[in-house]
């Protein structure tokens, strides 16, 4: 009897080719295995100050994300943030944050497997997203650094605006919804094939 070693695979590993064939106006790339930590704490509390000091970052306010450094912070709710960092950082960061928080009231939970991240870029991104998402991606409404948890084609997503007028966005999607969303994206891009895209 052999025991199979569990191999890690990303939710969209089967979709790499299909996503690579999309029109140039919509470049879609999966960023698999990113470190994701869920932070629950009261803004302005001692725990929040400890976390900010430990990371050297400010917890972003409502509907905003701090995307400048390696460690990114996404606002998810009035007392909830998602910390996103490069692959393999979860153990260090959890230990660092928990020791910084000490006995203060906060939770740090590793949710790296919960979502996968899609990086979309190109001049058609806004148009494609508009087919399934009611959020106004006009830069006057959602400037760079906006972070919105909403639905795209009925699938729950967190959308982070990274480029002006949504020329570059991150979509964080639950692993179980990822292949559905990839299907939808490929379908939504069909009409731009072979054109100016």
């Amino acid at each position, binding site marked *: 009897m052999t025991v199979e070693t569990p191999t890690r695979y990303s939710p969209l590993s089967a979709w790499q080719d299909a996503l690579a064939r999309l029109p140039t106006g919509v470049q879609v790339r999966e960023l698999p295995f990113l470190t994701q930590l869920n932070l629950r704490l009261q803004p302005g509390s001692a725990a929040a100050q400890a976390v900010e000091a430990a990371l050297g970052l400010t917890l972003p306010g409502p*509907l905003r994300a701090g995307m400048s450094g390696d460690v990114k912070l996404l606002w998810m*709710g*009035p007392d909830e943030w998602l910390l996103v960092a490069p692959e393999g950082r979860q153990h260090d960061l959890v230990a660092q944050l928990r020791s910084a928080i000490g006995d203060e009231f906060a939770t740090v939970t590793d949710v790296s497997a919960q979502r996968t991240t899609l990086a979309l870029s190109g001049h058609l991104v806004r148009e494609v997203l508009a087919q399934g998402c009611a959020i106004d991606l006009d830069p006057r409404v959602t400037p760079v650094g906006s972070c919105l*948890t909403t*639905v795209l084609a009925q699938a729950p997503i967190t959308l982070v605006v990274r480029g002006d007028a949504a020329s570059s966005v991150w979509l964080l999607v639950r692993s179980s919804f990822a292949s559905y969303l990839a299907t939808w994206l490929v379908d939504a891009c069909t009409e731009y094939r072979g054109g100016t895209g």
Partner: protein
Amino acid sequence: MQLIACPWCGEREETEFRYGGQAHVAYPDDPYALDDEQWAQYVFFRDNPKGPFAERWVHSAGCRRWFNALRDTVTHEFLRVYVISAQHPLTTSTAPAAQQRKGQEAI
């Protein structure tokens, strides 16, 4: 589609929200002191006004937070949204209204 203004996220489509029934229904101070009829009143009986109605809503597809809203049940217009800890916007205290309702039902 109707837009609902979440106190945290701003205006979003109504499909992002779930309804939570009447707001400001306080849990009985001493549940063991209630007889079956009083308990049934607390569990099952709700106001059904024609006009402004204070309701609980949750932004389930967004920030996932509960909030209260004053909605006109005739026009579906949201007159006001407010955080869950705030008092009923039409009455300064909910206790007298609840007492009054109980009294009417006894008659």
